[in-house]
């Protein structure tokens, strides 16, 4: 503590100015100004055709477009086709999540430091791979994998699996690193190999967490699988694009309704199960 010598003689402590507010304020005003510039530049640089969109003509064509959705095609054979598409969507999401859980666990092993003394050589490299897989959206993966696996639900399943592997691998690695170290250390002290330490000490402790992460991603993947078909990767999305492309608006409306119903059902189920589990 450095104190000016004459301050000690003063009857009252020296009058101090409050800390300059300009700094604190200016960070906020720079950020606000930056956001404003970004917003204005965005609207200015995009050739948004508002005139076309809000004009009477456009509204009329919008109305006509919505009107064409009615009546939806509810003939039994088409409903059966949509039901098959819905099942395909569910199967894609389920299998994709399962594959991702397996692959994620396999990649989480090198991506985590199992005990304090472990060198974890591959940790950084594996995490980089996982981050890359996670940053590419499902739809982009689907577009790439359609080339390798052909059109259809198989490409969609692989796309979901690829993206979700990145997400789950990262979460699994965090879970493994955060597991209580006691049981593992006890086994290791007895000379048990690292594979069996993982299987009998670490894994049983983290399995509930891994399950809850996987279920959460499954829920997300059902929603994602519904639209993956847009690039030809199967499920309801493929039906949607197909019939929309042929201007069969009645059929499009049925597919859309099925999609919304599926999403709403998943939301409601997840909400209800969360309520039951956290009560």
């Amino acid at each position: 503590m450095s104190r000016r010598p004459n301050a000690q003689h003063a009857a009252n402590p020296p009058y101090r100015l409050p800390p300059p507010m300009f700094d604190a304020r200016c960070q906020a005003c720079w950020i606000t100004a930056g956001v404003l510039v970004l917003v204005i530049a965005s609207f200015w640089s995009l050739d948004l055709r508002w005139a076309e969109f809000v004009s009477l003509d456009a509204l009329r064509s919008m109305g006509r477009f919505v009107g064409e959705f009615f009546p939806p095609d509810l003939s039994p054979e088409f409903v059966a086709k949509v039901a098959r598409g819905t099942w395909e969507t569910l199967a894609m999401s389920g299998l994709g999540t399962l594959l991702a859980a397996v692959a994620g666990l396999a990649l989480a092993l090198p991506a985590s430091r199992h005990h304090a003394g472990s060198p974890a050589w591959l940790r950084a490299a594996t995490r980089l791979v996982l981050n890359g897989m996670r940053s590419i959206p499902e739809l982009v993966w689907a577009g790439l994998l359609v080339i390798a696996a052909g059109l259809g639900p198989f490409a969609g399943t692989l796309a979901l699996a690829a993206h979700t592997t990145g997400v789950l691998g990262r979460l699994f690695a965090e879970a493994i690193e955060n597991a209580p170290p006691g049981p593992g250390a006890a086994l290791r002290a007895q000379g048990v190999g690292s594979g069996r330490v993982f299987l009998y000490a670490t894994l049983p402790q983290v399995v509930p967490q891994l399950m809850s992460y996987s279920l959460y991603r499954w829920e997300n993947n059902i929603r994602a699988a519904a639209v993956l078909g847009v690039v030809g990767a199967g499920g309801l999305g493929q039906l949607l694009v197909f019939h929309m492309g042929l201007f069969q608006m009645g059929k499009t409306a049925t597919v859309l309704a099925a999609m919304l119903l599926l999403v709403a059902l998943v939301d409601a189920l997840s909400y209800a199960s969360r309520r039951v589990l956290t009560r």
Partner: protein
Amino acid sequence: MAAVAPHRLTPPERDPAWLRRVGWMLACAVLLWPLLVATEFQPWLLVQPDNLKVTRQFLASFLPPAHSAEFLAMVARETWRTVAIATAGMTLALVLAVPLTLLSTRVLSISALAGRMAALPFAARQAVRWLLIVLRSVPELVWALVFVRVVGLGPTAGVLAIALTYGGMLGKVYGEILESGEAHVTQTLLRNGASRLQAFFYGLLPGNAAELTSYTVYRWECAIRSSVVLGFVGAGGLGQQLDNSMKMFNGGEVLTMLLVFLALVAFADAVSARLREALA
């Protein structure tokens, strides 16, 4: 009297739960079968000679990544458009979400101060909530497909799709944030005759501003990612160019754009993390 079996002191050689584990795994495999059928899961297709040839050609064309000056200029332009679509969409989403949040927040109800909310305001708030749920549960890709039909190819469809979906999400989460906080100040203001808007600005907003802003910034980051995806149905930006290059099997261009996309996502991630840190 039957002989008592000698107590075994040595630990079992094998995992005692071995049989049960194998049984569960077999049961799961049986349950898995219909999924494999429905998804046409045929991994051997991947290594079929014809498919393998196409894949190999496509992968081989990845290197070297496209790097001609005009291509890079185009990528830079499209990257900016992607950010611009996300930002414009978020702005419109805010314009949509803020009034809907004000309409639907229960804390700002005057009749609820006396116990139960009156019937009409309750119905109105519930109706707004349902509207938000509907807006949010239609995937943005579907909105984009519909708007591409109505307004044609280009960024307008992307901006509108983001505005509607994110408007619903923001409205719902803003409502949850405002209702989860401390309601005491707001209620005191309302009891003392402040208008609802005054109670919002002087009671509710200062207490929750940091959390609201941080969520908005996080959503902006998500909007950038989804504006790339929207490009795949013709809503402009990086995604549309990526889709074109993929359809033409131009691996070099695909690689460059993927790398730019990864950099963009990492950049948005860093900006949003720093902003949220500054707010916390």
